[in-house]
């Protein structure tokens, strides 16, 4: 008997306007404790998928269950409060709020008075944020903003962390840091769904992966298996 998936996406269709059919029946599962990645080229529908899961977009068809509960059609803030955190593509920190205020917003719905452990944890993961608490988020570098966006999401103590292209536009050293932290967060008990164009890094960090092409899942397997798949090697890893 297998345990039911923490996140269960079934036959999801999402259409922009009336014409652009961005998701065409996507199904995917993330089990508790996993790091799962979805790789795909620009325009494959990765962002659309995450946005549909977190309730920013409404699907035309299909269903999403989180922790056994149907979340399709629920408003974004309710889904977030269930423990599903979504770090959007392009970070989207609140530019005119300070670093500390951004983190506070991450914990917005938590009722505990004392969040100092959570702040300490975030500052331990990302020391640079601790040194810049009072700085406006809009003035941080791209890498720092990515760290802030991730730290902010962790302030909610999520069960599932969805990351949309965390390595986009960052220098290789910063990408290393980000992926180290993703693994560490996962070891600390947070399940991760990672969406990336950077297939190599994503597959290295993950236990399983899906390949998304023009709105459809074309492959799914263990990350190692995908790494040695001829088609994946050629199309996504740039190898022969």
């Amino acid at each position: 008997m297998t345990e039911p998936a923490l996140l269960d996406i079934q036959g999801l269709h999402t259409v922009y306007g009336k014409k652009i059919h961005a998701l065409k029946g996507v199904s995917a599962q993330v089990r508790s404790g996993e790091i799962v990645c979805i790789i795909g080229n620009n325009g494959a529908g990765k962002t659309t998928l995450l946005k549909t899961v977190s309730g920013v977009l409404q699907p035309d068809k299909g269903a999403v269950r989180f922790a056994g509960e149907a979340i399709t059609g629920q408003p974004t803030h309710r889904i977030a409060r269930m423990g599903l955190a979504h770090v959007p593509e392009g970070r989207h920190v609140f530019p005119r709020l300070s670093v500390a205020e951004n983190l506070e917003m991450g914990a917005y719905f938590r009722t505990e008075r004392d969040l100092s452990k959570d702040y300490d944890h975030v500052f331990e993961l990302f020391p640079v944020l601790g040194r810049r608490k009072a700085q406006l988020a809009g003035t941080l570098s791209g890498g720092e903003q990515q760290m802030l966006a991730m730290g902010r999401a962790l302030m909610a103590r999520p069960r599932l962390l969805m990351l949309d292209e965390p390595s986009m536009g960052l220098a290789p050293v910063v990408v290393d840091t980000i992926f180290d932290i993703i693994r560490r967060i996962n070891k600390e008990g947070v399940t991760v769904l990672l969406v990336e164009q950077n297939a190599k890094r994503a597959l290295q960090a993950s236990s399983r992966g899906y390949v998304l092409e023009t709105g459809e899942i074309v492959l799914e397997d263990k990350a190692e298996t995908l790494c040695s798949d001829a088609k994946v090697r050629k199309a996504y890893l740039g190898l022969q």
Partner: protein
Amino acid sequence: MFLQQLVNGLTLGSIYSLIALGYTLVYGILVMINFAHSEVLMVGSFVALAVFRFAPAILPQGPVGLIVALVLSMAGAGVLNVVIERFAYRPLRHAQKLAPLISSIGVSIVLQNAVFLWVSTQSESFPELIAATQFSIGGAGVSSLQLVCMASAIGLMMGLHFFIEHTKVGKAMRACSDDLETAGLMGIDSSRIIALTFLVGGALGGAAGVLYGLNYGSIKYNLGFLPGVKAFTAAVLGGIGNIRGAVLGGFILGIMEVMAAGYIPRGSDWKDVIAFSVLIFVLLLRPSGILGEKIAEKV
């Protein structure tokens, strides 16, 4: 003379600033101009009048009466603004940009006509909540009404500042104004924050309505129009969406208007022309207003 005009300008400016905050708060979060705001302010002043007519006992002359009048008018105007948002703007949130704008013009006309038809077609004298006394500070004649007006406005602005900067909900308002969609991902119910923004903006408008009535002594169904347009101008001048900008713009406009009236021959006929010319001039130099500089998000 100069000091005198400055006092007059600061008084007028404090009213403009309060109203401008209502425009800017709503714009900051929804990127729409709430043209009904001028009527919200007018209704606010009528709330105080109604309380005075039907329950004069709770509005004694003096600071207590003034505070009661302010609180009730702020509550009335704030709630009215929330109701307007709920029924006239929220259903249009995903419609094209122009739709809520047109809707707000509609609401404005409806409110003005409702007061015109059901309340009063002419000027009604406003209760003298504060006894008008004149005294002189450094040669400038100042009335008690002016002092009360400035003190109330500044007190409210300080309250707003504390709320926006230091409370969790206030920070959520700023977060929503930065990025509504992402605020939702933080578990912030953006519809509630929007409603709260209309409540706060409307309440400040209501307070401005009372201060207006207090200063001019009478109110009328169409009193909101001119201060509304001026305060909107002030908000744009300061940088629409920027809270400090609204306050700054309000005071600049108020002072400019009074100075023009005082120093330029037949200036009081020209003061509006001068005020709007300055607006156009500033916007040509700085299209985003004096403080309207957005920190770009780095990607």
